[in-house]
């Protein structure tokens, strides 16, 4: 099955980013295809390469890892502007793009799952 994912919350304050990551890992393990992960609203903050939680899971590294595997991970450009998430701040394998990317995931996915508050 082709699955699209959207994350509406940032790191650590809410469970959403963690749940999205574990969901994607589980879906991939079962042979599903992830058509894309869209980081929207505060979700863009999950792509901050300077996230450095002492002794804790690194949420940015998780999305970077998924991107490095070839899964398209996109952070909303406008949301990034609102939050000062410049291109040189994000992790390498998360791309900045617009709602067109989200529209594409919606059209290409058999199921679309949103993680938010």
């Amino acid at each position, binding site marked *: 099955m082709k699955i699209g994912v959207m994350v*509406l919350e940032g790191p650590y304050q809410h469970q959403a980013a963690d749940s999205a990551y574990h969901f994607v890992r589980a879906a991939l393990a079962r042979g599903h295809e992830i058509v894309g992960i869209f980081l*929207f*609203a*505060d979700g863009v903050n999950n792509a901050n390469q300077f996230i450095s939680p002492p002794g804790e899971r690194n949420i940015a590294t998780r999305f970077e890892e998924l991107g490095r595997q070839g899964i398209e991970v996109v952070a909303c450009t*406008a949301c990034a502007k609102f939050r000062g998430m410049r291109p040189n701040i994000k992790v390498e394998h998360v791309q900045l793009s617009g*709602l067109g990317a*989200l*529209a594409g995931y*919606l059209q290409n996915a058999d199921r679309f799952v949103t993680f*938010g508050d």
Partner: protein
Amino acid sequence: MSANKVTFLMRHAPYGSVYAAEGFRATMGIAVFECPLCIVFMDDGVYALAKRQNPTALEMKPLGEGFPTLGEVGVSEFYVHDASLAERGLTPDDLVMGVQVVSSAQVADILHTSGTVLPF
């Protein structure tokens, strides 16, 4: 099920969190790609359509008046949950635009027949 139809489910108040504003922005952004969609307002989400919003003291822009402009990008299906309106002492006359007022069962049917539901 209409595989490609997207329902934007608006459940958050227009101020206090960014959800309603981002739901509006996402609706407009997706609509321009000619993706068939509708919007359902329920719970505190019905306040997003209330007339006379004045968030000046919050240094924010009123959200409600944006929704009628979605017609310009082809959005024509606006549903409002009747019980959510009634619980808040609102009637359709209190809203910034004409909408289809729907029951809980009708909301369930809309969600069931949508290919995708995006909650905001």
